């Protein structure tokens, strides 16, 4: 446990000192704030639904950039021997991956929550009657779980023998593809990326909270599967 805490601190410091932590935190927040700037005609008939849709679209970009940052960073860590430095001290490779997942996932989820709050506040600013926030909260939780799926996929990419730039690009394409497909194609089944679809079409769901819970569940299962895949891939790689 003490080792994992040391690794988490190290990953957080590395992200902080290079301003990448700030990027991961502020991108979703900026996305949430930006929905206030969307003209009413584009935002849709119902203010919260419109804001949620635009926030979902902005999340595709911000989570994609976050996934690219993580994948590129870890690929660079492999190249400069930082992971090797830990592994020769009997630190399991999986512990390094888990530390990065905890730090980036935590920051990403916090940023998404802040962004959703900002979107809610900007959308309800001019409303006389404040609607029920529960569907938006549930959809945001499911969207955060979908973001964790993108992050876990980025860890798999980072474990491949790729240079930092191709690793970042591949993670960006994968995560944006996965998240944007949920926004563009109306999804009915509870898929791992369903949270984004729900956020993008909040009024289209008859039972948004139940759908969000189902999507969150499948997303967390997908995260677990992808993390195992990332661990196995890095375990077989040369450092």
């Amino acid at each position: 446990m003490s080792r994992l805490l040391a690794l988490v601190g190290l990953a957080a410091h590395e992200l902080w000192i290079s301003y990448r932590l700030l990027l991961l935190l502020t991108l979703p927040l900026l996305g949430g704030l930006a929905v206030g700037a969307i003209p009413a005609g584009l935002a849709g008939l119902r203010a919260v639904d419109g804001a949620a849709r635009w926030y979902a679209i902005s999340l595709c970009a911000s989570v994609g950039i976050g996934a690219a940052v993580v994948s590129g960073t870890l690929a660079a860590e492999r190249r400069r021997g930082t992971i090797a430095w830990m592994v020769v001290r009997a630190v399991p490779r999986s512990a390094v991956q888990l530390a990065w997942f905890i730090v980036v996932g935590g920051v990403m989820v916090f940023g998404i929550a802040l962004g959703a709050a900002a979107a809610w506040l900007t959308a309800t600013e001019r409303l006389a009657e404040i609607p029920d926030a529960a569907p938006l909260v549930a959809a945001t939780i499911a969207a955060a779980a979908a973001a964790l799926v993108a992050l876990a996929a980025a860890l798999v990419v980072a474990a491949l023998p790729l240079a930092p730039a191709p690793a970042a690009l591949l993670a960006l394409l994968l995560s944006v593809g996965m998240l944007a497909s949920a926004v563009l194609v109306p999804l009915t089944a509870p898929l791992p990326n369903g949270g984004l679809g729900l956020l993008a079409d909040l009024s289209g769901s008859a039972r948004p909270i139940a759908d969000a819970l189902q999507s969150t569940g499948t997303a967390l299962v997908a995260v677990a599967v992808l993390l195992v895949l990332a661990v196995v891939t890095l375990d077989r790689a040369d450092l």
Partner: protein
Amino acid sequence: MLRPAAVLASGITRSVRGARLLDDLELSVGVGGRLLLVSRPEGTASLLLRILAGLAHADRGNVRLAGVSRADDSAAGWARRIGYVGASAGIYAWMTPAEVLELAGRLAGYDRAERHRRSDAAVERYRLGASRDAPIRRGGAALAQRTALAAAMLTDPEVLLLDDPLRSVEAEERSRLLAIPGKRRTVVLASAFPATEVGLVNQIALLREGKVVLHAPVRELDARGLTLSLRGIEALAGIGEGAGSAAAAR
């Protein structure tokens, strides 16, 4: 006198992109041995060292260092008994030498008092005092490499694996730092420039075509009037351009 093996590699086989770089390789280094590992092609010695350190995988074969396997992650196991320093330091440039040593101590499972005691000793031995609390980036690659060696020696490892280390450090200082203390400590040094390792090793091994084709005491080179160089080692093995003249000298 026979000594127990501190480094034992058996049946190590590794192919990269279809080329078999290590082929059923056997290597045994007794406790206290100081082995210089050179190879053709050049990177093979480094690959073997990284396999020994658990950084690269063998397709087949077994490795035991200081009597423990890589899987032993107990406090008294691999983390404290094996040290490795690669060509690149592998340290975050924003860290200070003090932070690196503290982290190495934490990862090795020492308590706070023991970490401080060992860090202080390492700072003194590796002359890190002046830059102890400054980011490593300010001291450049030489400081990073000295800090990496100090961190590897923090646990007083029984086996130290050195993969072409300290190349950014000035030659005289490098020789001083690589004169690793400890009669029972086993050192395996992979080097692309064997001539720079004079005085640091007492055994040499040559890897060719994936196998150890020569493993001999350094004094055999001296006895045959050969220098500690790749040509000299190849000549001792009866391979290459120098082999004829070595035979004549015999």
